[in-house]
Every structure is written in structure tokens, then in C-alpha cells.
């Protein structure tokens, strides 16, 4: 193809990408670009109004996603993407808010925020890209690094049992919990479309290859080799109990949509709670003024406080 024709090529996802920042910073063989492509595809499938979508991410390789997506996007501090997204959603309930961040960002430093947001069933959608390591800072141990795997802060093999991300989130009370790998691009995209339309806390874990640090430190080959390994070990089972399917170095990766319920969201509970109060307090200003006038008159009995200044 000639150079002139190359220049005119417009990728169908270019309208959702910040073209002045492509090519992105992710390594060759990294699954993040595919995850962003699946995200863009999922949003198109869901037919949401793109002007009313906000994307929040934390710090890390996945945290850079916000900088490449052409929607209202925010790149916040490490671990605090979820409360930030909560603030956006509660201040403007018409927005569809996505949190796109990594396993370390959401479950290590941000672990507390995640379980509380899931408990409250706040109406945000969280996509957690799990690459089993802290990629951006050079390959340190993550709470999802499998037992025995090597990382730069576990030079003799990881001696900590990892978290099971879908298990925690399901136990905390999320409305929708799913796990996919980067290989299953279409199912991931469909899951994202479902989450965008679904109320309540929606969580999707994406098992993604990290070519430069995780694969290299664990003799995994290239990004493509990791993808092939994921593909070979993946089993799809929507009926699996999410608390019983941890991720290890050798066992099967169980993927699927494990939880899909319709529990009421935080805001619905608020509206429910204040139903009676709104009626009772319709004349609120008048009630308060009367109450306070009576209180003020009472306290005038007690003199002796000097009027200072």
C-alpha cells in the first residue's frame, strides 16, 4: 500500500481514541491495547451516549488507559480511582462511570475502597486488568502474583498466596462479577456492554499478558506465548462459585459471568429511606425557624456570658 493511502486509513475505533496520543506507551505483546479495543467495542455495542461516559483510572500501566480514550477521562492517584468515580456518579447520576485500573491499584492500595463500593452497590463499572505484577514500576510483587512466581521483590519466588479477585468482589456484594482473558475479546466486549447497561456495582476481571516483566521473569516467552497459555488453560463455566476459582501458575483459568443479580443500588436505597421524610418535612423551613426561636427564648434566662470583642 502506498504511503499516501496509508495516511488516509481510518481505524473504526479512531473516534473513541485520542489520536494525538497514539501510538501508546504499552509494550509490544501487552494485552492492554486489546482490552481498550474491547472496551471501545463494548461501549459501541451498548449504544450509550458517549458524551455521558466518564472513565477514571489509577496509577500503573492500566492507569494510562484514561489518557488514550476520548471520553471525559481522569487519571487520579494510586488506588483512589473508585472513590473518585463514586464522587462523579453521585454528583451527576446521569453519567455512566467506568473505572479502568490494574490489580495492584484496585486490590492492594485500593482494596478497602473496592470492597466498600461493592458493599454499598454503588452504580459504577470496574474493569480490573490483572497482569499478576506491578508492571509500570518494574515488576514488583502484586497481590495477585501466583504462589511461587518470580518478581523483582520476590527473587526467590513469591511466598504469599494471591487474592482471588472475583471471589472477593462477589462476597462483598457486587451486582455483576465476571472474569475473562484478553484472548476472549468478543466475550469481554459483550460483558462490558452488559455492565454499562446494568445498575449496581459491576466488576470485570481481565486476565492480560505482561510481556516485558511477568513473562520475562517467569520464563513465559513473549506476550503471544502468554496469550496462548491463557487460551489453553481457559475453561468457561458461568455456574462456578467465584470464591472457589483462584488463579495459579498451572491450574485452569475459569472464566465466565459468575454473578448477575439485581440488588438495589446505593442511590435507590437513599431514595427509599427518605420517602417519608420528604413529606413530613415539606414545611421544613417553617418548622426549624419555630423550633429555634423557642430554644433561643429559653436560653436568654442564663445571663453572665460576656460579650467578648
Amino acid at each position: 500500500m502506498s504511503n499516501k493511502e496509508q495516511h488516509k486509513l481510518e481505524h473504526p475505533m479512531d473516534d473513541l481514541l485520542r489520536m494525538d496520543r497514539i501510538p501508546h506507551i504499552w509494550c509490544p505483546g501487552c494485552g492492554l491495547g486489546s482490552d481498550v479495543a474491547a472496551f471501545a467495542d463494548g461501549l459501541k455495542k451498548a449504544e450509550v451516549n458517549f458524551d455521558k461516559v466518564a472513565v477514571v483510572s489509577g496509577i500503573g500501566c492500566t492507569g494510562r488507559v484514561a489518557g488514550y480514550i476520548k471520553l471525559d477521562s481522569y487519571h487520579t492517584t494510586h488506588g483512589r480511582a473508585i472513590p473518585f468515580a463514586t464522587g462523579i456518579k453521585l454528583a451527576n447520576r446521569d453519567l455512566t462511570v467506568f473505572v479502568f485500573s490494574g490489580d495492584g491499584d484496585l486490590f492492594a492500595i485500593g482494596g478497602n475502597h473496592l470492597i466498600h463500593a461493592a458493599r454499598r452497590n454503588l452504580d459504577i463499572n470496574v474493569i480490573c486488568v490483572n497482569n499478576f505484577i506491578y508492571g509500570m514500576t518494574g515488576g514488583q510483587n502484586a497481590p495477585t502474583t501466583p504462589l511461587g512466581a518470580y518478581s523483582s521483590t520476590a527473587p526467590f519466588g513469591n511466598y504469599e498466596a494471591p487474592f482471588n479477585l472475583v471471589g472477593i468482589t462477589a462476597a462483598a456484594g457486587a451486582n455483576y462479577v465476571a472474569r475473562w482473558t484478553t484472548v476472549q475479546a468478543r466475550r469481554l466486549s459483550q460483558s462490558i456492554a452488559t455492565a454499562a447497561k446494568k445498575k449496581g456495582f459491576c466488576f470485570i476481571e481481565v486476565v492480560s499478558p505482561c510481556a516485558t516483566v511477568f513473562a520475562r521473569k517467569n520464563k513465559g516467552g513473549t506476550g503471544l506465548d502468554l496469550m496462548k497459555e491463557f487460551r489453553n488453560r481457559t475453561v468457561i463455566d458461568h455456574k462456578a462459585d467465584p470464591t472457589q476459582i483462584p488463579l495459579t501458575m498451572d491450574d485452569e483459568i475459569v472464566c465466565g459471568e459468575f454473578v448477575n443479580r439485581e440488588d438495589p443500588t446505593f442511590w435507590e436505597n437513599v431514595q427509599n429511606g427518605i420517602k417519608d421524610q420528604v413529606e413530613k418535612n415539606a414545611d421544613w423551613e417553617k418548622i426549624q425557624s419555630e423550633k429555634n426561636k423557642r430554644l433561643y427564648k429559653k436560653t436568654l434566662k442564663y445571663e453572665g456570658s460576656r460579650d467578648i470583642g
Partner: protein
Amino acid sequence: MKQWERPFGRSKPETVKGEVKIVEDRCKGCGFCVEYCPCDVLELSDKFNKKGYHPPYAEKLEECTACKLCEMICPDFAIFVIEKEEEID
């Protein structure tokens, strides 16, 4: 596949064909598209792009069914597919 009936009087079923477009200078030679194309349309070429990687090319373009899996799985937004309908006879 052997067919016993001619679907709606046509000689073969209507299929969608795809034309693969590759934005060569974005490619980082990861090989995802080559590996995961269900019809084995793509291969890595020998030429170099601006960054020194080998971009893919459509070796068996006639096999492409425009499933667009390459478009979704490419991490660099470097490949996409345009559908073209086959002529009905």
C-alpha cells in the same frame, strides 16, 4: 462441505467477505492477529515498518469472512476489516 440443496436457487450460500486494511506504522509485530485469525488469512511479512517491526499482510485474503477478530484483538489499533458482499449469481 457437500450440499444437498441449492439455497434459494443460488449456487452457493451468501457469504460476507472482508478486505483487510493494515495501518503498518502502528504495528508492533506482536503476532496476535496472525495467531487468532480463525481463517488463517494473515502472515507476518518480511518487510520492516518505520519502527523496525514486521507488520502482517493478508496472504489468503479470499478466506477472510470479516469476523473482525483481528480488529478487536490488535493492541495497537493497526488492523481493521471492511466488509464487502459477494456478488450473487
